[in-house]
């Protein structure tokens, strides 16, 4: 029974996907973009309609209307709007998909069947793990926290959670999932983003490689530990950027090959949708426009691509601009509104989004492509992408570069990679380009096999199977921690206490304050905010725009800030942030902050929970004296 309850969010996600697919076809048909029943057409339909659904969710959230009724109402409206023709096309597409898979199972050789079996196994494992309650660190900090705070309330800036300004269109699917009834539906949408990226990768691979190689590429992609983590437990919607980046390459390639501008417009729209997921995503429309301008030498095509990109991705930038004057808040604040800039937060965000080893020295730049894979920890866990792209990079020379798909994919990959090198050197942010890098490098290996270079081919095959074994083993071991709660062998509470960082802290704060939470807010400094169920404000001056250390440098000013924020309780864990410590300590000495409860609680700690490091911390709750 518990297992069935665990799977119920996936049923909701599947239902939404079917509806979204139908409306996608309905919209594409008048433009003659889905008249043929092809695998590609279904991907275009899904890409277009998920993006439009995000617009609708954004519209609902402006006046604060996003809730269970409006969310399910939206899905019902979309289902009706798809009309007979949309549903018919959608049914044909699913039949095409089903027949294609069935045909390969019954007619394919042993190798193909094995690939399909392994693909089914990894997808099933990912689907199961994605139904576990949310435990991702960044997600508990802001990916899921900001959408939760915005739910049921008119859209408003949350200055005390600066990261909330970084939530964009991909986060609207998280909001939609929550409004539909569960944050596990939101996690399911992230899984859908991953599976759609895999499907788009397959469509791209088929343009460069035979079927078996294409299936192998998708299998390697989905089994890659970074992808496994990102689409199951991380709670980050970044994978949607990967989907839209790959889809834009597919659409542009089709547009150029068929000399049909409408596909270029569609590619632009998808590139814009990728840009709408994260600030760094704007490099994708830039890459496509650069390709059209510099390689195709057509400003008309570049414009046809650039304009829809802008329209498809501009919403979050417009929102941030209207709120703060900076569309990329807070990164352009010193140029847009210097007087209102909290330089302490800004500097911390810049440091936070950069790899610890970040450097633009020439020697470092030469080492970086190797180090990011072979010593990944200082570069945002680059090792979890696996060694294949680096190992097979030399074989890129063997690709048939006359292929439009290969050229566009290479340009997008190069732009994403170079922008990453210059801006952050956080390899995790290369997620949107990973599918493209993988399909290109594997295409190179495929051509190597065609050359009949036995020793090199055997070494490549060994590299591939070694990584596949490693990836399956790692994914399996990683999944082991999540499966007990999915199968009902562990309660949600026990699972969260075991796996969600600082969950016990949040529970302690909830149980201590909840009964009197109407009296005001709790100021907390802990990073993982998602499971707090009392009104709170985030007080860590590193990431809270309102807690400017320059403006809270004496107890009186700090007390004024606390009162402005309606703070009734302050929670230290175990101490105050260093820059505010003196002021807070003085308030304690002056009895303006009184100790009301404390507890020693254990939690996961360190840079990654896979190391399993735990630490006991003293949590103290103090009340602000009126």
């Amino acid at each position: 029974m518990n297992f069935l309850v665990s799977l119920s969010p996936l049923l909701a996600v599947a239902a939404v996907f079917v509806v979204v697919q139908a409306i996608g076809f309905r919209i594409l048909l008048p433009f003659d973009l889905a008249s043929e029943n092809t695998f590609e057409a279904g991907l275009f339909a899904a890409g277009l309609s998920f993006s439009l659904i995000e617009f609708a969710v954004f519209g609902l959230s402006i006046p604060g209307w996003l809730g269970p009724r409006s969310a399910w109402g939206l899905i019902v409206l979309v289902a009706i709007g798809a009309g007979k023709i949309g549903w018919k096309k959608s049914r044909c597409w699913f039949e095409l998909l089903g027949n294609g898979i069935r045909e390969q199972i019954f007619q394919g050789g042993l190798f193909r069947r094995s690939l399909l079996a392994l693909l089914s196994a990894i997808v099933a494992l990912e689907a199961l793990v994605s139904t576990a309650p949310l435990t991702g660190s960044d997600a508990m900090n802001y990916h899921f926290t900001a959408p939760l705070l915005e739910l049921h309330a008119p859209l408003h800036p949350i200055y005390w959670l600066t990261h909330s300004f970084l939530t964009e269109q991909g986060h609207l699917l998280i909001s939609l999932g929550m409004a539909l009834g569960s944050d596990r539906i939101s996690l399911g949408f992230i899984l859908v983003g991953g599976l759609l990226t895999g499907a788009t990768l397959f469509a791209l691979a088929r343009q460069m490689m035979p079927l078996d190689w294409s299936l192998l590429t998708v299998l390697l992609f989905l089994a890659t530990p970074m992808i496994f983590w990102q689409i199951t437990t991380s709670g980050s919607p970044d994978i949607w950027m990967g989907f839209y980046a790959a889809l834009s390459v597919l659409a542009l390639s089709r547009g150029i090959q068929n000399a049909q501008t409408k596909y270029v417009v569609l590619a632009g729209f998808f590139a814009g949708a990728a840009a709408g997921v994260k600030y760094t995503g704007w490099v994708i429309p830039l890459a496509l426009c650069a390709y059209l301008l510099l390689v195709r030498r057509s400003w008309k095509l570049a414009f046809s691509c650039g304009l829809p990109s802008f329209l498809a991705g501009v919403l979050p930038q417009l929102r941030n601009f209207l709120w703060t004057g900076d569309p990329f808040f807070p990164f352009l604040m010193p140029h847009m509104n210097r007087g209102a800039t909290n330089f302490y937060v800004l500097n911390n965000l810049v440091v936070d989004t950069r790899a610890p080893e970040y450097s633009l020295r020439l020697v470092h730049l030469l080492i970086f492509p190797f180090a990011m894979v072979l010593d990944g920890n200082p570069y945002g866990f680059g090792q979890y992408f696996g060694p294949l792209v680096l190992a097979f990079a030399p074989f890129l020379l063997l690709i048939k570069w006359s292929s439009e798909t290969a050229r566009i994919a290479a340009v997008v990959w190069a732009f994403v990679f170079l922008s990453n090198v210059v801006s952050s050197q956080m390899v995790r942010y290369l997620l949107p380009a990973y599918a493209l890098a993988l399909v290109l490098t594997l295409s190179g290996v495929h051509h190597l096999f065609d050359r009949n270079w036995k020793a090199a081919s055997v070494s490549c095959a060994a590299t591939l199977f070694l990584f596949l074994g490693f990836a399956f083993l790692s994914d399996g071991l990683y999944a082991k921690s999540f499966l007990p709660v999915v199968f009902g062998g562990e309660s949600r509470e026990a699972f969260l206490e075991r796996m969600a960082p600082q969950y016990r802290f949040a529970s302690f704060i909830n149980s201590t304050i909840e009964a009197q939470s109407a009296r005001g807010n709790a100021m907390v400094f802990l990073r993982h905010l998602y499971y707090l169920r009392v009104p709170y404000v985030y007080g860590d001056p590193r990431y809270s725009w309102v807690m400017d250390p320059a403006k809270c440098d004496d107890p009186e000013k700090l007390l004024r800030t606390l009162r402005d924020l309606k703070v009734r309780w302050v929670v230290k864990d175990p101490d105050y942030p260093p820059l505010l410590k003196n002021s807070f300590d003085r308030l304690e000495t002056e009895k303006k902050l009184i100790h009301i409860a404390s507890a020693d609680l254990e939690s996961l700690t360190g840079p990654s929970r896979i190391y399993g490091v735990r630490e006991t911390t003293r949590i103290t709750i103090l009340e602000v004296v009126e």
Partner: protein
Amino acid sequence: MGRFLQLTAVIWLLLVNWLYYLQFKSLLLARLASLKHR
């Protein structure tokens, strides 16, 4: 030429694989230590 390129490719792949999997030694040791601690 073909033989030289092949040999280079084999050495390159061996090197990348060896260096790649080597970095997980510390993770493996940390996991074992955490299991022992439990």
